[in-house]
């Protein structure tokens, strides 16, 4: 049994506004429990109605390449632009840390960033870095929820005048950390990695979980839940 149109529209609207990325029909469907999930037709009808209701409003529902999103109407640009006019904005420390972790630990998911930071990463941090085109989605981790994996872009390198990330100082130089794997000889690592993962041909969820656990930076008292999808 699916839910009524009014409730359906409410949930869709909320999701479109809460998401930092356009949402596909599949992802919208995934918001619902099985027994309440709308059909494709119901979903489309609700989106259509939602779009029409935006007509007198300041925002509109748009279908772009990667799905549906809510966006500010272009005609309101002149006013909205003044939001950013007065003072050149500054990135928060949280944004800088997020960017640094993406650069040094890419490809990395938001949850993994949160694990290292021990603090939630809000959606607008990710959104602002995506909009700046300093980071991009390079793939998805093949675990439930298919979280996006972020990496840095050429624009990021260009802005900082780098030819490649190699030109960034190694972490050890920033601060010496124990157990850091910065091998003296890359061939040694190669041999080691190959020996270690000789068996790993087809990745399954199990091994990805294990790896995630190893990579996580956090105390045992602080399992992977310092995560704030905001």
């Amino acid at each position, binding site marked *: 049994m699916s839910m009524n149109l009014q409730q359906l529209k409410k949930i869709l609207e*909320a999701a479109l*506004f*809460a998401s930092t*990325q356009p949402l*596909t029909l*599949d*992802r919208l469907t995934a918001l619902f429990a099985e027994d309440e999930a709308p059909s494709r037709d119901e979903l489309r009808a609700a989106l259509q109605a939602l779009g029409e209701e935006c007509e007198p409003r300041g*925002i509109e529902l748009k279908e772009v*390449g990667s799905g549906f*999103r809510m*966006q*500010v109407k272009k005609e309101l*640009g002149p006013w*909205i*632009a003044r939001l*950013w006019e007065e003072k050149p*904005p500054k*990135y928060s*420390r949280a944004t*800088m*840390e997020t960017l*640094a972790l993406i650069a*040094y*630990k*890419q*490809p990395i998911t938001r949850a993994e960033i949160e694990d*290292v*930071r021990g603090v939630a990463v809000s*959606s607008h941090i990710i959104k602002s870095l*995506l909009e700046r085109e300093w980071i*991009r989605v*390079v*793939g*998805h*981790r*093949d675990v439930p929820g*298919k979280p996006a*994996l972020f*990496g*840095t872009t050429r624009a990021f390198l260009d802005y900082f005048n780098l030819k490649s990330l190699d030109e960034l*100082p*190694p*972490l050890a130089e*920033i*601060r010496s*950390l*124990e157990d*850091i794997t910065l091998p003296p000889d890359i061939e040694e690592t*190669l041999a080691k*990695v190959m020996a270690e*993962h000789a068996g790993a041909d087809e*990745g*399954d969820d199990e091994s990805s979980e294990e*790896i995630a656990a*190893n*990579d996580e*930076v956090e105390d*045992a008292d602080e399992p992977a839940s310092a995560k*704030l999808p*905001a």
Partner: protein
Amino acid sequence: MTQETLDPPVAEPAAAVPHAIVLGTPLLKLPEDLYIPPDALEIFLEAFEGPLDLLLYLIRRQNLDILDIPIAEITRQYVDYIELMSDLRLELAAEYLVMAAMLAEIKSRMLLPRPMEEEGDEEDPRAELVRRLQEYERFKQAAENLNNMPQLGRDIFEAMAAVPALDIERPQPQVELREILLALRDVMQRAANFTHHHVQLEPLSVRERMSIVLSAVRPDSYIDFTRLFDVQEGRMGVVVTLLAILELVKESLIELVQNEMYGPIYVKAAHHEHEPTAAEENP
């Protein structure tokens, strides 16, 4: 008496604890309540926020009237815990010892004969303890209330809409590379404070190449393994790419397939049903 005293009271309301208190005469057996399997003590203590919390528990557990705490019994129980802790060489927080001393002091004062009537003004030696317990309890409750309030990202979510390209230039924050490095240093320092894990970082060249390889492969079709390499980059470049591929396999982000011995190797992104990867890039 063993475990049942520590069961939730709801579990065995009648059997476990005799609740009645007749004017300061608790009708229950106190000292034996203490038994906790030694190897569980540490976990047991972790459930408490400190000596006040533990005391509140001991008092409430036995339905005692705080205004009439049988201080001798409570002290004995408490001290038994402390002894257990030191027997087990658990690192004993100083606060627990201070509380033990405070309890002992109250107890000794209560043992002193009190002149009748005329000393009505003298404070009950328990009063300070009671005051602290009550004060603590208020904030314990306040903390619980706070935690139950709507929280951003848990109960409520910010609503945002994309901003289309505007005619007016939006100034972007200016960032110096140094700031990124300092931010990284800070976050790594914080991460290092969590003692059990360490951040593992591959060389940056490998990390960067992982992103490049990942965005070159797709979940719905295979590409030739060799296409990921650029021989122009020389030996080092090839090694970096190979390391990146191995790391991606290790993280289950890509799959390698070889249908026959010595046959060509194919690569694709780890399978998932919806959303082709490429389409997800910048909305």
